[in-house]
């Protein structure tokens, strides 16, 4: 397989917040990369740090109380954390787009939607004023909005939820960025609209070659959309791989728990769903060993005492779990690693 270049690389990123009770480490040593033209999924429960990670990339988190504890974020080779305010503003909207979760509150209620799309071009060179309006109308058509001239002049409260989300996607895409980050874009929409939006994203990847980071807690979305997936828990990445590998060759107990807890077409009648008992760890005083240890069916003493190493199972598939260690007893999770015990 030809090596695709990396558009975005996160290396050992740490991000925390000052709170009344102390420091909360929301993101604890997260690393991943996004390649050109691919759709990367980030999956995990509420509170596992996915949104914070995504907003880190564009430095959108409010700076007090948030702060970077370390790591690098490389976009096309440049370190985002070292950029000046002017430089990062060029990247935002221009080279990386962001689609937020709740379309109902993410648009300025006192500004027409057309103007909000055109705003992206403010301060950017290479586009004349006349072209700006055309580009806006063009992108609105592209995202599937009908009757664009009329919609262009309307205010957000005059549009439905699905249409508002399309506007958000239009805003993210209008200046043809190489990467867009979607933070649970379909969570607050109903299922039929969700299907349309997902189809739209696939189409846009085909037509424009945009890379997409898709953050979600819905495994169905992952299955439909994503090439590769990373699974986050407790502020860390616990497993990564292609979508197929994750669904059919699960290597981490948490991922397995996620797969078991959703209803599938071949679930037998009367069979109970198996939730993962317990709650995510409190990041006030994060656990010393593996973050999932307390809720894990396969927990061992070593899991409580030391954070697990990363085991590379195939080219893309890696997991962060003691079950892969050579000293661990044989179990259904243990794979035969291609490169045995190699630590990344």
């Amino acid at each position: 397989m030809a090596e695709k270049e990396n558009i975005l690389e996160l290396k050992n990123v740490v991000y925390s917040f000052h709170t009344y009770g102390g420091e909360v480490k929301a993101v604890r040593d997260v690393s991943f990369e996004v390649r050109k033209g691919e759709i990367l999924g980030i999956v995990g429960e509420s509170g596992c740090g996915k949104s914070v990670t995504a907003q880190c990339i564009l430095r959108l988190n409010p700076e007090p109380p948030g702060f970077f504890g370390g790591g690098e974020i490389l976009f096309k080779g440049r370190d985002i954390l070292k950029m000046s305010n002017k430089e990062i503003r060029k990247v935002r909207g221009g080279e990386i787009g962001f689609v937020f979760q709740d379309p109902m509150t993410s648009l300025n209620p006192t500004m027409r939607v057309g103007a909000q799309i055109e705003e992206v071009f403010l301060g950017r060179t290479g586009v004349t004023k006349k072209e700006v309006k055309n580009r806006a109308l063009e992108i609105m058509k592209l995202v599937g909005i009908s009757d664009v001239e009329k919609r262009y002049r309307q205010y957000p409260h005059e549009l439905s939820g699905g249409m508002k989300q399309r506007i958000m996607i239009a805003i993210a895409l209008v200046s043809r960025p190489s990467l867009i980050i979607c933070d649970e874009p379909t969570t607050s929409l109903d299922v039929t609209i969700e299907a349309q939006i997902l189809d739209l994203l696939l189409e846009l990847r085909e037509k424009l070659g945009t890379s997409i980071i898709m953050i979600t807690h819905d495994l169905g979305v992952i299955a439909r959309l994503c090439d590769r997936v990373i699974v986050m828990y407790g502020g860390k990445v616990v497993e990564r791989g292609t979508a197929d590998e994750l669904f059919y060759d699960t290597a981490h107990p948490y991922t397995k728990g996620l797969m078991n807890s959703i209803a599938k077409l071949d679930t037998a009648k009367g069979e109970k769903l198996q939730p993962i008992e317990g709650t995510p760890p409190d990041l006030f005083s994060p656990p010393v060993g593996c973050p999932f240890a307390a809720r894990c069916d396969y927990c061992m003493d070593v899991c409580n005492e030391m954070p697990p190493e990363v085991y590379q199972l195939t080219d893309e598939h890696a997991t962060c779990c003691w079950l892969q260690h050579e000293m661990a007893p044989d179990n259904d999770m243990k794979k035969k690693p291609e490169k045995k015990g190699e630590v990344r």
Partner: protein
Amino acid sequence: MLKYVTKRVVAAILTVFALVTIVFFLVRLMPGEPFTSAKLTKEVAENMNSYYGFDKPILEQYFTYMGNLLHGNFGYSMKYTNKTVNYIIGQTFPFSADLGIRALCLAVSLGLVLGIIAARNRGKKLDFACVLIAIVGTSIPDFIMGALLQYFFGIKWGLLPVAKYLGIEYTILPACALAFYTLASVSRIMRSSMLEVTSQDYIKTARSKGLSELRITCKHQIRNAIMPVMTVLGPTVASVLTGTFVIEAIFAIPGMGKYYVESVNNNDYAMILGMTVFYGCFLVLCNLIVDILYGVADPRVRIGKR
């Protein structure tokens, strides 16, 4: 939008109606009679009573008065028996209105600016200074402010004139005294509104577009933060305009306040009634204008739900 305006206008009319009725009956309940001063003989007093219709049953008086009102006729003053209330109001209202409008413009414009500066610099020294000014401002009643300004700027330091109304420099101290309280309260409301808007999602969206801070502040924050301020603008106008009464007394400005206080002390029914009704109606009108302006400014009201 039309529905909104109609609703507001109807409410305003009903309010005026309630106002006139309540004031009318309250004034009639006041102890003392207008014509019992020693200067008038008994017959003259009786004549006056019958002229003003006080010997008729009270409901009849009410309807007569309402009828007169609809023709814009407030009747004759009982003290200045050769002048109508209309005339006196006409002479004095322009002064009060002038003072009130100057104070309002000063208060609202400076108040908004202060509130925006405080919110943008939250937690820093500038914020602290603005909040301090605001808190001190809402703690000093306007008549005390007037007295203080008079003392320091007029008497002690002799910088500005303190009384009467003979030129534009005479308006500075009274307008400042009147404006200070409102300026402080407007700036507080604007500051908290700005802070609330800043935590909204669409500000994050704006930031993710790579917009400059200036643009985000002006087009996104201020534009939305100013809405709650507009909703309290009505009562604000009312408090500024009622504050003129006392300020006029301190600074010897020939406005409505002087005649109002006099008529209160003289039981001049017609005058009290007339001025109160006039003033009340004026304030209701101001409230109505502010409400309509708000409807125009907020697209959610202007265009309505789909």
